Every structure is written in structure tokens, then in C-alpha cells.
């Protein structure tokens, strides 16, 4: 009798987790499909790439709508940024772009903010399904699920960066913007490419975590059986925040171990190449990490 009961409970638990995973996969398939030109956006457009100003504008509009759909107030952070070398400024005009963000308020009074960021642009003429519609889908799903949580000790900022592919301009502008606020930034977590797991081991990469963040991520990974390793790669958005003194971490597929999309920055970086189970598993993992941080 006891054995039967245990079996029944296990089946129920499994089907609940499986159901959660299945609905998450479906949700992320739609999100990534719209961002990478597989599906039409609600405005009736196909975003075939997110490299040109017009394509990035379409993607921005889609993200604004998606944020509004989950009941948050979308905000657009438009910016102009100088070139990397001041002498290039003499020759060229400045970078222009727009980050999209929203704040999920804490359930208690707090001036602490956890930033979840991912870039939404892609290389010119690349659909950018893995790089980086996957990272965008991950943070969107995490915030959507956190919204239903009743205990959030800190505010959460969901931010989609523009122009990562052009010298991290969008995240540099956003870091500068945050520096000008009197918000107490607890930590910045950026996600770039979370859709490839060639060897099927669910491994994830942490880029330059602070000791505290490494601990939190490692503990949850141990609980969920997710292999992790740490690198000192600085070529993506978390670097912009660390440069201005924010505690930051980059999280992604095993890029440093070359278990990463071979289609990065090519027209073949399509919806069909995304490993949605890996993305959903990684999303649930990050969700658990966030719950721990927001305790």
C-alpha cells in the first residue's frame, strides 16, 4: 500500500514537473520564434534578423508588447554613446540605440535591485535564435514566474540590451544609466546564448562571478544536478557592469568548452537549432537561483 502511494506521489510530481517544463518550452518556443523570424509577431511582422536599425526597432516593439502582456510597465531607455576611441568620434557619429526594461517590484519595502539582462540584437543578416533570443527568453520566463511569487525581498529589473554585437554599447549605456540612479544594485546577471547542449550534459558556464554569486549558483546547481564551470570570459554584457563597479555574473551555455552553437553570427543561427529542453532546464535552474537571492 505504502509503495503504491509513493509511486502515485512520484508520478504526480513527475507529471507536474513535466507539465511545467512542457508549458515553459511552449512559451519559449513562441518567444524565440517571434524574435528570430520563425513566427509572425502580433503586429504581423517577421523579424528575420535584429542587426539593422529597422529590425532592432521591430524587436524592441515586440519586447515592449511582451512585457506589457505579463502585466509589467515596459520602459524604453534610449541612448547615444560615444565611439570606443575619442579620435574616432571626430570622424564618426555616435552610437544610437534603445534598451527595453521593466521593474518587478519587491513584495516588501526595498531599495535593492537584482538586474537580469540579455541582449536582443543580433549580427546583421543573422536570425540570432541562440545568440541571443535564448537569453532573452530565459530572463523573460524567469521574471514572468517570479511575478507570481509572494515573497520577493528585492526589486528585479528585466532588461533587454541593444547593440551587444557592436562593442556592448547597449549594456554600457544601461550600466551608466544605473550608476546615475540611487538604486542599491544587489547583483547583475546577464545571459548570452543558452540554447545548445551538444553532449547533453546540461552544463552551464559562469563568467567571472563574485564569490557570493558563485556560491549561490553552485549550490543550486548541485541540488539540480547541473554541471557548472567558471571562466574569465569578458566578451559579453556583464563586463559593462563590472567596469562600473557592479557585482556581476555572466551565465550561458558551455561556450568556453566549445559545447556552444557552431552557428553563432551566421544566417544558420535559426529557431531549428535551439535545444528547447536545455533552455527550459536552464531557465528553471536560474529561477531557483533567483528565488534564493530574493528570499
Amino acid at each position, binding site marked *: 500500500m505504502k509503495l503504491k502511494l509513493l509511486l502515485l506521489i512520484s508520478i504526480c510530481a513527475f507529471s507536474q514537473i513535466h507539465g511545467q517544463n512542457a508549458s515553459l518550452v511552449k512559451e519559449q518556443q513562441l518567444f524565440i520564434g517571434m524574435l528570430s523570424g520563425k513566427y509572425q509577431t502580433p503586429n504581423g511582422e517577421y523579424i528575420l534578423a535584429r542587426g539593422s536599425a529597422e529590425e532592432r526597432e521591430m524587436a524592441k516593439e515586440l519586447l515592449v508588447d511582451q512585457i506589457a502582456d505579463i502585466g509589467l510597465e515596459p520602459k524604453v531607455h534610449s541612448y547615444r554613446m*560615444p565611439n570606443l576611441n575619442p579620435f574616432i568620434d*571626430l570622424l564618426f557619429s555616435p552610437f544610437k540605440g534603445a534598451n527595453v526594461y521593466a521593474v518587478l517590484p519587491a513584495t516588501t519595502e526595498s531599495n535593492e535591485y537584482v538586474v537580469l539582462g540579455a541582449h536582443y540584437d543580433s549580427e546583421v543578416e543573422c536570425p540570432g535564435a541562440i545568440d541571443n533570443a535564448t537569453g532573452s527568453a530565459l530572463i523573460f520566463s524567469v521574471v514572468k514566474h517570479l511575478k507570481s511569487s509572494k515573497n520577493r525581498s528585492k526589486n528585479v529589473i528585466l532588461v533587454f540590451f541593444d547593440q551587444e554585437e*557592436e562593442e556592448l554599447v547597449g549594456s554600457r549605456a544601461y550600466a551608466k544609466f544605473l550608476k546615475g540612479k540611487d538604486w542599491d544594485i544587489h547583483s547583475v546577471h546577464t545571459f548570452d546564448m543558452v540554447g545548445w547542449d551538444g553532449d547533453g550534459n546540461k552544463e552551464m558556464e559562469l563568467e567571472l562571478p563574485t564569490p557570493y554569486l558563485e556560491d549561490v549558483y553552485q549550490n543550486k546547481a548541485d541540488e539540480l544536478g547541473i554541471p557548472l564551470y567558471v571562466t574569465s570570459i569578458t566578451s559579453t554584457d556583464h563586463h559593462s557592469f563590472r567596469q562600473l563597479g557592479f557585482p556581476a555574473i555572466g551565465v550561458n551555455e558551455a561556450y568556453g568548452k566549445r559545447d556552444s552553437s557552431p552557428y553563432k553570427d551566421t544566417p544558420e543561427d535559426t529557431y531549428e537549432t535551439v535545444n528547447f529542453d536545455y533552455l527550459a532546464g536552464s531557465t528553471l535552474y536560474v529561477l531557483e537561483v533567483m528565488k534564493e537571492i530574493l528570499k
Partner: protein
Amino acid sequence: MRQIKENISVLPLLSLALVISILAFLYKGISYLLIGSSIPFLIGLIMLALIVYGYNHRNRRSRRIFRFWGWMLVFWGTVRLLMELMFILTSITEEHIQNQFTIGQKLLSISFILIGIFIIRKAQFYREVSV
């Protein structure tokens, strides 16, 4: 001030070319200053000071300053056109760089080369009139 007015009336076209070109660079400088980059503004300011000095003094240095500015404009436009050629040859796809080479930007480069040549040529007369 009187000296400046007199010089403007003697060579109005040269004055116009100098004013347009220096204002364009100052505008660029101010727009960069507002977003945290001061080098273009400082360079614009130095050139403005030199040109005002040039107008206030009737000496050989004035002519040199104007010619120098003219050559700078030619250099600026030429470098931009050469960079465009280089980017075409190397097939760079970065959106920001592509945006620097629109038809409007090309016309701007060519205009400034022409203004530069004009200033170099007219600066000669400035000396003759001034002496």
C-alpha cells in the same frame, strides 16, 4: 573686433567657409560632450581660438592657420572616404559603421574636402589683402 569685421568684409566667402566649417565641428564637439566624450569639443575649441586669432592679426601666421584648417578639412573628408573604401573591401557588416557611409555622409565628406580646398586657396589672398 573692428579688425575681424574688416576682414570679413574683405573676404566674405572665405569667412563664410571658415564659420560653417568651425561651427560644424563645434556642433559635433558639443553633441559628444553631452554624452561624455570631450576630445572633439576640445579640438573644436582650439581651432576656434586659432581662427579668431588669425582674424585678429594681419600676419603670416593668420594665413598659415587658415591653410592648416583647410588641410585638416581635406584630411578629414579624405580619411572618411578612404575608410569607406576599406570597409567595402573587407566586407565589414557592423550596422554602426555602415551608417557612417550613407549617401548623406558621403556628400558631407566631399563637401568638406571642397570647403577645405576653397579655404586653402583663398587663404593666399587673405595675406595679400592684409599686408
